[in-house]
């Protein structure tokens, strides 16, 4: 059975790029694509994905706010943050401290993306 993935990025291009990377891996099924943190929280509640891929910088509600909201709904949610924008180190560390399982950086390397997702889904708890 495949793992259900929710993609959250304000860029349509990035969403499609991640969909394309995951399309080659039957272990993953994309169940939704949100373009801001607020949409992500709603889709997380309705779709119950096993993995959430969350951009750090987004309009309306940014990735760190959405991460907090998602983890308050389910403390075991598996969230991987996507980082490309300023203050990378600090924001990535803050996300990990809040409970994100990993951080991937742009531009993506498909192999790294898949190995990170595999590792996060294999973690206990």
């Amino acid at each position, binding site marked *: 059975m495949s793992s259900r993935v929710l993609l959250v990025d*304000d*860029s*349509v*291009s*990035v969403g*499609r*790029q991640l*969909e*394309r990377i995951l399309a080659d891996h039957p272990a993953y099924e994309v169940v939704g694509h949100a373009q801001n943190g607020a949409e992500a929280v709603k889709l997380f509640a309705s779709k119950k994905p096993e993995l959430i891929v969350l951009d750090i*910088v987004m*309009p309306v509600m940014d990735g760190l706010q959405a991460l907090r909201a998602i983890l308050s709904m389910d403390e075991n949610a598996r969230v991987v943050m996507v*980082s*490309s*924008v*300023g*203050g*990378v*180190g*600090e924001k*990535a*560390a803050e996300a*990990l*401290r809040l409970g994100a*399982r*990993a*951080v*991937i*950086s*742009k*531009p993506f*390397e498909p192999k*790294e993306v898949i*190995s*990170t997702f595999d*590792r996060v889904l294999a973690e206990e708890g």
Partner: protein
Amino acid sequence: MSVKFFGQFLLERGAVSRTDLLKAIDLQQARNRRLGEYAVRRGYLTEAQAEQVNQAQLSADKFFGEIAIEMGLLEQGQVEELLTLQQNDHILIGEALITLKLIDSERLEKELAAFEQDQSRYVIDDVIFPPGTAHASLLAVPVDLTAKLLRRIIGIQAKLGEGSLETRSPVSRLVTVTTYFHGSLTCGYTLSISKDIGSAVSQHIAGEAPASPDSEIVIDSVKELCNIISGNAAARYAQLGRKVEISPPAEGAPTLDSGKTFVVFPLHVAEGAVEVRISR
């Protein structure tokens, strides 16, 4: 791969766990203090004065010590003493991991060599600015990364030309997007590319050929390319000890104030056109 911190590299390669990395970051944060904190601890500045310098630093391309001297709050000798204290205490993430016994030195050396090899693709080459350009070495970062990331992301060779002072805006047949850097460096970064290259960017980023070069997806992809370049530049600035935030990219070029100029860099490509504008 991209410009990144060694800790993130180790995490992505599974060399350390998230929990262990956070322990090492905690140790680093406890040891690596800002210059203002040393100045307060030594009694050279009050907390209010240190904060005053921090605030001034938000809108100046200068280090804490330089600003404190200009404000008449510190002497050159005091700044040098504080910098020595700061350097003596400073600990790198690898050293923190070793100190806490979270990685062995053999594995650390192996990972460090792999990291250096990976990051060598992003070492900043010489960028030629017009004579007298202030902070040219910092402004060079996003300019040079444009050529490197065009090569990395869409596989085109782009040879960076010399920067020239100009007032003209990008021509309308180019797709133009702009982002702004704020903090210890303040400038606008504008990327203009021809629609054929924009279509190639879209193919590589979104993974699909756009229906037409004027499609929304082309603009979205060029914005994302601008986002990646500026984000990687911000990571490089952080490695250089400069805290720089960037704004989300928006379509178009900035309007110049009277008497101001852009520094325009052509990037020579086999087909099409690429230009970068830096505005201060």
